[in-house]
């Protein structure tokens, strides 16, 4: 692998809770190659979105980053002060947050909201140059230039999501983090938006982290997938291998929970419930829901091991 564009090492995020400490992200490490599409999958509450916020140092109290390092293009983010990290957000690493299409300001035109990004990052463009850049961005995400003069309520869900992607790429970032960018959209529109994201990502040569729980979407979009469970990355592997040969029982369950269009009556859930992070079971956090759990799984927490190009945290893999 070439020099990673983003490297995350031993990242931990804790939250203060009246009933004790909650470890929302627990010792997560991974690296992203330039231009790579990396997926983060898992149930709600598994720590995917918290991990994204932690990478951008956007965790707010009662949460805090307990330990760990993030490097972006060789720069250690911990060395930056608050102004430094503000300058880096959007410009170098952009986040399309969950539900972002509903976070557009309803009383500002789309063009104004894109221009905000330039202004906030100290780009003082002339009015003509600004309009030209906004038009180019809208064209890049498949919207017409006229959208710049429209308000969010005049756009459909898919168009709003594209406008959010336009804002995310406005400063040509090296990494785009997209947190469930299509969860509120219909399948047909979802494919249009994902095709747009794939195209702009290739044009920019940016790496993408796609957060979601749809293994079908992951299978069709990402190059490599990380599966999160209870705040930990329990399996990381190239996507083809993950789909054809999942090693962690939780990954297998996630794939099996995807409703098939080939055989009816095969819908399977994942037994049990995701554990409460403040009351994690001893040993492997997945063992109460795992059909193959042994005595060892009840007492010893599995460490992440390298197995033929994949990383797996399971005693049985």
């Amino acid at each position, binding site marked *: 692998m070439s020099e990673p564009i983003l490297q995350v090492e031993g990242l931990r995020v804790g939250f203060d809770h009246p009933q004790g400490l909650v470890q929302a992200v627990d010792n997560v490490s991974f690296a992203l190659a330039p231009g790579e599409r990396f997926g983060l999958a898992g149930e709600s509450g598994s720590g995917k979105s918290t991990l994204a916020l932690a990478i951008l140092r956007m965790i707010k109290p009662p949460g805090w980053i307990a330990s760990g390092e993030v490097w972006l293009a060789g720069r250690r983010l911990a060395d930056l002060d608050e102004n430094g990290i503000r300058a880096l957000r959007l410009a170098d690493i952009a986040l399309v947050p969950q539900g972002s299409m509903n976070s557009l300001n309803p009383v500002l035109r789309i063009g104004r909201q894109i221009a905000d990004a330039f202004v906030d990052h100290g780009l003082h463009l002339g009015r003509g140059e600004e309009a030209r850049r906004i038009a180019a961005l809208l064209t890049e995400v498949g919207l017409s230039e006229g959208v710049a003069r429209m308000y969010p309520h005049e756009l459909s869900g898919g168009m709003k999501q594209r406008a959010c992607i336009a804002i995310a790429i406005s400063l040509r970032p090296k990494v785009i983090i997209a947190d469930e960018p299509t969860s509120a959209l219909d399948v047909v529109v979802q*494919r249009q938006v994902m095709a747009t994201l794939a195209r702009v990502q290739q044009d920019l040569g940016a790496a993408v982290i796609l957060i979601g729980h749809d293994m079908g*979407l*992951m299978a*069709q979009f990402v190059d490599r997938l990380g599966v999160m469970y209870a705040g930990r990355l329990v399996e990381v592997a190239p996507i083809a291998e993950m789909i054809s040969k999942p090693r962690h029982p939780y990954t297998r*369950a996630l794939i099996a929970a995807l409703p*098939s*269009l080939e055989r*009816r009556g095969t819908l399977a*859930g994942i037994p049990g419930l995701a554990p409460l992070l403040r009351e994690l079971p001893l040993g492997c956090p997945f063992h109460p829901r795992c059909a193959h759990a042994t005595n060892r799984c009840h007492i010893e927490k599995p460490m992440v091991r390298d197995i033929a190009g994949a990383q797996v945290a399971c005693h049985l893999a």
Partner: protein
Amino acid sequence: MVALIEAIDVSKRFAGGLRREGTLALAGLSLAIDAEKPSIIAVVGESGSGKTTLARLLLGFAEPSGGEIRYRGADLRALDRDGRRAFRHDVQAVFQDPYGVYNPFYRVDHLLATPLRRFRLAGSRAEAREVISGALRAVGLQPEEILGRFPHQLSGGQRQRVMVARALLLKPKLIVADEPVSMVDASLRATILGSLRKLTDEHGISILYITHDLATAYQISDSILVLYRAHLAEAGAVEQVVADPQHPYTQLLVSAIPRAKAARDWLEQEEAAGPNGVTPSAAGCCFAERCPVAMPACAAAPPGLYRTAPRRAVACLQYQDHPVLSRGDPGEVLSLG
């Protein structure tokens, strides 16, 4: 066949404020739900396709602008007090949001005991508790873990199953479930849909399963209606419609679902789609502007509903050699059960 509920050429138009023509939410749809043969009927479509409007019309929450809804042969609007009471007993609803439907100040028991009291289904408190416990067990919940709790103490999946149990309490003939799993996690989806399937197979209750998710519809339902912008696009047995979709919109819907398989052709298919050169018109087929096989005739007049197989209807001009179904008479094609 005895129809429990029939929709006869129902349409719904919402008055449009300043826009005088209003919004057409549902256009001339007919279907019949069998009273004797319980089954799961899926209604699939994107947002704005009219699927929730259909649910609200069948539940009697909204009145059709045209056509009529019949309950055991009688117009829903003309039911007397007893008829209305029987209808409210026979037809139950489960809604999308398992968070919004609960009053946070009441224990879950209140929500379950109210219908029993209203319909005088239990003679004593002990009997009421027995009936409630039975309904909770039928949806895979342990009564001791649920009763006495407040809504905030239950997970989303538990709450939604309590809603299914509440519907089950009255031993209805039909449950209209509007997006019952779109707000619960993928891992719990199967459990809730499984308990719906069990209601049909073991308790003889028909279910109208309204969803935007074709894949879960395929998994649990027997027949399916595909709606597109207020119009019925295609209807039939679910295996046939999903394995061999005939309407171009259904074909698009099936191909747009990302699959967990090795072949990565999902995004490429998107790039292949482009404008088709047909100028859409309000008079023509509502799908013409997006349709890959549209002909000039598609923009001229709306397609009829063609019977392409004994139990299958498709609203597309490609099939105009097949017999046309009358809009007002569901006949046996749209008699679902």
